[in-house]
């Protein structure tokens, strides 16, 4: 499994994704017009796709990072354990992303 490159790629995506986070916070501090502008972007199709991708990158990077952390601690080096950790990060990342978005739509859609 060549998943460590995905860990790296999601890390790089998250790196540039912080610009979106910073923009959002600065807009919230700037005032209603700036904030509405950000919401206009994050509410658009392309905006939603980017934020969805960002959510997946974050969830995957977190779980994949936990996998590396387990290895750092000296566990999980057997072939079946490595496979389980890798698949766990891959499937868990997708599952958490979907879960977060379901909750987001359930809560945000009601407002």
């Amino acid at each position: 499994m060549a998943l460590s490159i995905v860990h790296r790629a999601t890390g790089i995506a998250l790196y540039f994704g912080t610009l979106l986070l910073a923009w959002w916070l600065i807009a919230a501090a700037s005032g209603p017009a700036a904030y509405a502008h950000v919401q206009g972007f994050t509410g658009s199709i392309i905006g939603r796709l980017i934020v969805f991708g960002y959510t997946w990158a974050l969830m995957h990077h977190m779980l994949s990072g936990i996998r590396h952390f387990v290895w750092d601690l000296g566990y999980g080096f057997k072939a079946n354990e490595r496979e389980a950790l890798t698949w766990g990060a891959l499937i868990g990342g997708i599952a958490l992303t979907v879960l977060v978005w379901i909750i987001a739509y359930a809560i945000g859609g009601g407002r």
Partner: protein
Amino acid sequence: MSTADTPKRSMRTPLGRVRNLGAAHSGTSDFWRQRLTAVAMTLLMIPVLVIIMMLLGRNQAGAKQILGSLPVAIIMLLFIVASAWHMKIGMQVVIEDYVHNEKLKLISIMLNNFFAAAVALASIYAILQLSSGV
């Protein structure tokens, strides 16, 4: 630790002992900080997600009220500091792995530091402004 440096027990090569802080010239401090910030962000993930859920669908006045409250502001500040530090180290590792031209590597590492610092300080400033009620 003299026992660790005896040839029998040491895992380090003679070259490694000469260049005692390794390729990054900072020993293992970045390795440690990378894990420290990773664990911090993992612990902060659920509170941060809860905050984002609270903000969904609200206008700027609502967002300001939530982000400006003390517990929320502290959680956000901790997350910003941990993520900026984490991504600075992570990107430096990527640069050191792929950029082999020495000058370009130094410039890249410098820009990486600028980027992480700018994103962190801009975000921190925004949170502080939301908290101060100005």
